[in-house]
């Protein structure tokens, strides 16, 4: 098969030949084996004649998998004094099928000293976090930065959504005052 037959915009499936490394640089959606460039995705081939790069723009769904540096959203499952477990259901604004588990340690909660995890989050909270490490078969999360932290928090006594007042969180229903590490945009709109 001649490589020049592959035009930009052509529909390709995994395994389709896109060219050889003498004429193109393999870009995203492609792989190279024995000097030939193949597609690994289902989508449209893009041939950039200026940068001599051939890539495939996938038409299939995006595969959301947490990686170091990605921003994830999850629900707090279990809180111990030093750690909390998160059930991650969204990676970089993409909902995922099933869920991943992440671990948040007190040392990754705030730039300030936090004595105990219960001062930062409680079970049921919806939290935005950043993946800082994937060592030891676990996703280690951080909510240190201002835009990270609780997006929705619930009163531990009555279950009502808490209202943020600076560092304090107040339940408008029963008046309970709690502590959380909240994101800058706490309570503003959706879970995203």
């Amino acid at each position: 098969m001649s490589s020049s037959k592959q035009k930009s915009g052509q529909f390709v499936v995994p395994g389709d030949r896109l060219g050889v490394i003498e004429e193109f640089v393999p870009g995203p959606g492609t792989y190279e084996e024995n000097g030939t460039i193949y597609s690994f995705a289902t989508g449209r081939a893009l041939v950039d004649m200026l940068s001599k790069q051939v890539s495939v723009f996938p038409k299939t769904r995006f595969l959301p998998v947490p990686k170091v540096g990605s921003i994830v959203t999850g629900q707090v499952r279990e809180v111990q004094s030093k750690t909390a477990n998160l059930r991650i259901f969204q990676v970089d604004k993409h909902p995922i099928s099933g869920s991943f588990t992440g671990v948040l340690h007190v040392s990754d909660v705030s730039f300030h000293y936090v004595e105990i995890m219960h001062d930062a989050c409680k079970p049921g909270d919806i939290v935005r976090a950043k993946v800082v490490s994937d060592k030891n078969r676990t996703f280690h999360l951080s909510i240190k930065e201002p835009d990270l932290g609780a997006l929705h928090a619930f009163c531990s006594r009555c279950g009502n959504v808490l209202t943020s007042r600076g560092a304090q969180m107040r339940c408008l229903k029963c008046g309970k005052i709690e502590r959380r590490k909240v994101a800058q945009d706490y309570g503003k709109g959706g879970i995203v």
Partner: protein
Amino acid sequence: MSKKKVKKLINGKGIRYDGRKLNELRPIKLEVGVLDNADGSAYIEQGKNKILAAVYGPKEVHPKHLAMPDRSLLRCRYHMAPFSVEERKSPAPSRREKELSKVIREAFEPSVFTEYYPRTSIDIVIEVLQADGGTRCAGITAASLALADAGIPMRDLVSACAAGKVEGHLVLDVADLEDKQGEADVPVAYMPNLNAITLLQMDGMLTSEEFEQAINLAVEGCKQIYQLQKEALKAKYVEVKEAKKEDAEQ
């Protein structure tokens, strides 16, 4: 599955009992993206075979100790529905199904880029709704499309087809009756662009020359099936875009 006793499977003119030529496939219908709840899915009808394939993942591995730090765990479950055969089959996975699950998984391992998604699992589920011989091959063909539909990076699509020997003739795409009364069955899974065989089995007796001919025959069948697979993917992903374009114009 006719209960009539067929005396001869191949007549003097080289026509098989179902009207096919010796090197002819059964009619194949392929459809991609038939299930909403799976990440990727496909359906195949090959002759009287009716098979659904679904793919989940990449997702978190359970049980966790199976997770691998450098690559994704590929798992496969081949299962026949109780109503897929003439006499009700127990729904519990039989020894045969467990073995087929293993060989089908191994047929996909050279194709899937598992190293792109460490610590995750990619699960393939193949459910045979109606069986008429060659279900492992049809299952692989459908599962390959389901993997592509799920957006899993693959080196190549995997196409599968069987060849066999019936009444002294080498035939392509062995049906159930031919498999039971014939002399041999050679299922082959094949990656057409990389020219690599990922599954090769044999049941029965063949001479080494016949075996080589049977492989070549099966590979030719795989190449035909590959074209149908490509068309099935195109039918899903190209027409969706065209339909959207038409909607925008209206």
